[in-house]
């Protein structure tokens, strides 16, 4: 029930915010705050519940299930489950949702009711994506999180918002629709071989596919997730969307939406198509390395603060791809660590960029400079976040990148080495932010105000979490361990059918899917 509550709190909160704002002006933000606090506490209670149970006793690492038939004609259920991986993502969603509401507090001035509706519904969609174990439901949430996000960008974004919103929507929608086709392909192949037509995750994971089938279907899924992540040639929407979105939108985009891509690969692509994904591991990793270096290069060249941070995301997500396709537990734990750490640090960097934009009216970093003297609290926050972004030991990002690279090194050392160069590039562009914004000559004529207490609290919490997880990554890595073991077992152990076994089985059944 708590799983349904996680989603429905946000959905109902959004509706309430919209309706209440009509009668009581200014009430929407309070509704938003209450809803996101409630969600956060629900996620927290889930966490406490999870730490209370012995992970080894639950099958597949899943410790809570909610199932209700929805469209039985198609074998579709309203089916939510949560395991360690899901739990970490739910926690992140709850936390960043709260951050997004808080940061919007003083920044959003018009049409607040509709704003909070969209904000909370985006979060609800993301929450649903992390919880859905019925693939139809997953696709549904995948789509649902787009529409409100589109409105967030296109109504409350900055100058070039409409273009950015279109681009964002169309890129992700194409990916989504390809996923739908692949999803249906999987559904029918599974249905025709087993006789049970179902969108259930645990049914579909058992689908036996020929090499060719699994290759095609994998691409359908993979493209959707790679667009979201994003990976190098498909990253084009990201700088625009991140750059033009309102602050809370950027936080959600960078902190959560990108994570749905990584989550999708971990949860669906690899377990569903283990052989096919292994066969493309090398090209994918090379793309990952290219992404790291190319993202870093472009980040260095940006003058727009938000676009700069956006390109660092491209760079950081390269590590995620590399880690995923290294197919070992260490790397995967690093990947999830990276998802959390990047969500927090980049989210907070966007918060900072949003605050700077609000105070100075520009996002051009050439027009900043010497801000440390006037806004020391902002400077400290910026310094820590930038150091986190470049992967300073002691902060969560370092742990993440280290684990990813160490895991990768055991399988493909050359990729790990190449990716490590990206760390140096990260140092360069990260320090450039510090240099341009906070050091140097103060050129601004007007003094700007420092972080307000609420902003300080928001960023301080993030910084605290980054340091805490940097020193003690155990809570995350321990939580995700059982689910990672379960997921990665699809690739590593041959008992579910090695390459040759699958091929044989499917030569018999391959024709069933065709009409």
């Amino acid at each position, binding site marked *: 029930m708590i799983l349904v509550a996680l989603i429905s709190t946000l959905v109902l909160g959004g509706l309430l915010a919209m309706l209440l704002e009509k009668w009581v002006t200014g009430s929407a933000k309070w509704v938003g705050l209450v809803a996101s606090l409630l969600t956060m506490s629900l996620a927290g209670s889930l966490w406490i519940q999870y730490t209370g149970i012995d992970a080894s006793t639950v099958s597949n690492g899943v410790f809570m299930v909610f199932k209700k038939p929805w469209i039985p*004609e198609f074998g579709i259920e309203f089916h939510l489950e949560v395991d360690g991986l899901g739990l970490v993502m739910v926690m992140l969603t709850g936390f960043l949702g709260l951050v997004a509401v808080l940061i919007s507090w003083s920044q959003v001035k018009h049409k607040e009711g509709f704003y909070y509706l969209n904000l909370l519904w985006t979060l609800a969609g993301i929450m649903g994506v992390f919880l859905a174990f019925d693939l139809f439901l997953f696709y549904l949430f995948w789509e649902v999180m787009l529409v409100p996000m589109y409105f967030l960008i296109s109504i409350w974004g900055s100058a070039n918002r409409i273009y950015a919103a279109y681009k964002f929507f169309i890129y992700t929608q194409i990916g989504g629709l390809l996923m739908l086709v692949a999803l249906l392909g999987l559904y029918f192949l599974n249905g025709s071989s087993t006789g049970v037509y179902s969108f259930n995750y645990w049914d579909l994971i058992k689908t036996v596919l020929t090499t060719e089938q699994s290759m095609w279907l994998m691409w359908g899924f993979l493209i959707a997730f790679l667009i979201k992540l994003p990976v190098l040639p498909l990253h084009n929407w990201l700088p625009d969307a991140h750059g033009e979105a309102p602050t809370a939108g950027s936080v959600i985009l960078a902190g959560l939406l990108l994570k749905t891509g990584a989550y999708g690969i971990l949860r669906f692509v690899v377990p569903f198509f283990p052989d096919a994904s292994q066969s493309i591991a090398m090209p994918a990793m090379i793309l990952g390395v290219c992404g790291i270096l190319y993202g870093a290069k472009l980040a260095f060249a940006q003058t727009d603060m938000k676009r700069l941070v956006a390109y660092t995301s491209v760079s950081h997500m390269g590590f995620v791809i590399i880690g995923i396709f290294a197919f070992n537990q260490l790397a995967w734990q690093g990947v999830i660590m990276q998802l959390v750490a990047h969500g927090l640090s980049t989210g907070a960097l966007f918060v900072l960029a949003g605050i700077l934009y609000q105070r100075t009216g520009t996002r051009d970093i050439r027009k900043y400079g010497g801000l440390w003297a006037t806004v020391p609290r902002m400077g400290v926050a910026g310094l820590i976040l930038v150091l986190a972004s470049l992967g300073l030991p002691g902060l969560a990002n370092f742990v993440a990148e280290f684990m990813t690279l160490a895991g990768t090194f055991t399988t493909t050392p050359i990729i790990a080495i190449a990716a490590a160069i990206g760390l140096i590039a990260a140092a360069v562009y990260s320090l450039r932010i510090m240099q341009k914004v906070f050091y140097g000559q103060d050129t601004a004529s007007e003094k700007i105000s420092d972080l307000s207490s609420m902003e300080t609290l928001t960023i301080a919490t993030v910084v605290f979490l980054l340091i805490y997880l940097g020193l003690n990554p155990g809570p995350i890595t321990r939580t995700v361990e059982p689910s990672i073991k379960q997921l990665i077992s699809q690739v590593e152990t041959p008992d579910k059918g090695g390459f040759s076994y699958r091929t044989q089985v499917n030569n018999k059944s391959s024709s069933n899917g065709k009409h």
Partner: protein
Amino acid sequence: MENIDFNLLSPLILLAVAPVATLMVIAIYRNHTVTFCLAVILLVLFLIDCFRLWSLSFDNQMVDDLLMIDKFGLFFMILIAIGGILILFISYSYLNNNVKVAEEFYVLFLTALVGAVVLVSSIHFATLFLGLEILSISLYAMIAYTREWKNSIEGGLKYLILAAGSSAFLLFGMGLIYLQTGALDFEAIGSSLEKVNLISTAGLAMMLVGIGFKLGLVPFHIWTPDIYQGAPAPVTALIASVSKGSMVVVLVRFLHTTNSQQFAWIIWTFSAMAIASMLIGSLLALKQSNLKRLLAYSSIAHLGYLLVAIIAGSDFSVEAVTYYLVAYFISIIGAFGILSIFNSTGEIEQVSDLQGMFWTRPWLSVIFGVMFFSLVGIPLTAGFIGKFYVVMAAVNSGLWALAITLVVSSAIGLYYYLRVIKTMLTPVAKDAPKSALGQLSTMGLVVMSILGLLVIWFGVFPSQLIAVIRSIEVL
């Protein structure tokens, strides 16, 4: 003749009496409201009769090889009746505002529905052609009904000429098939059409041309935008939903009964037409600033989607077509309805007319947004389930190329639907002249709300409707 079961024919007889009765009442007492109420009451009676027949358990029955009364046809009769009633509600205020003499509209409207109902139960060339002509002739006059507008007259004339031309193709095709098979009813044609030869191929091809025209499929789509634009918005709703829908149904019946899908070339031709319709419809819609033209091009794409489901040819495909048509009926009637329920002379036509509507009329805009989301296939709307069904049918039959094209076309489609929604959200500048949109008619708003809720309902809880559709045995 002797063994005609009047019980089974009663809906059709009732509906055929309706225009005559309406005409009589007009002759005695000419009043718009009275005529409107009468037409609605007659349609409701028809609907009730359809439901009565639906609840009876009866065997599919042919009437003199001309008509087939079965659940499949009844389902669409019910759909047509409901769609018709909704369009009538939209039309009332529209006619009040735009036309001096409105009564004849209802007579034509009812005859058009007779044509549509005959089409959906037709299993014979004679009824197919007559149904089609009744529908088309009524539509000519209805398109030109707002005589004062040049576009309207032009649209009517264009439709007259092009529809007559396409009917000629259809007739000639029928003639060639008759020459080959010596039969006019679908079943007999099906049993003697097995041999492929030049004459039957030419006959089928010419019929395809005729049907392609009526459905507005590429490359026979050129009339669509002009007629959609020229016709009064309620009539456009009728063309987009009832007229095209009943044609799709008769096409499904024809292909199914004659088993024409055995011919590879028909599948290839349909596939090419579907792909072209989906892509060209979507691409041409991109540049439109006129809402009705935009919807016209999008309807070309939508018919392409429907064709994909038809090509699939499995058990799924009829279900998919049926569901898609239901979803499409609701959404397109809703979309055109909103264009026509403003209590002002003329219509909202340009996309820019909608600017800022979200902030001045939030409820109506939400409904409009829901209709558009349904047309584009965003989850939680009926249109999504419809599109999902179609993709399902395509994938089930292994039509990957068509499924992918559908996906691409949908993605392009997103762009122009979003553009309209975006316009509604863009606030109007403070000093801009007051919006030209007039007051809303309450009746129209109620109908729109019902439609909006239906779209959501069928999108969130499609189960019941799917169960009903599954219970229909085709033919």
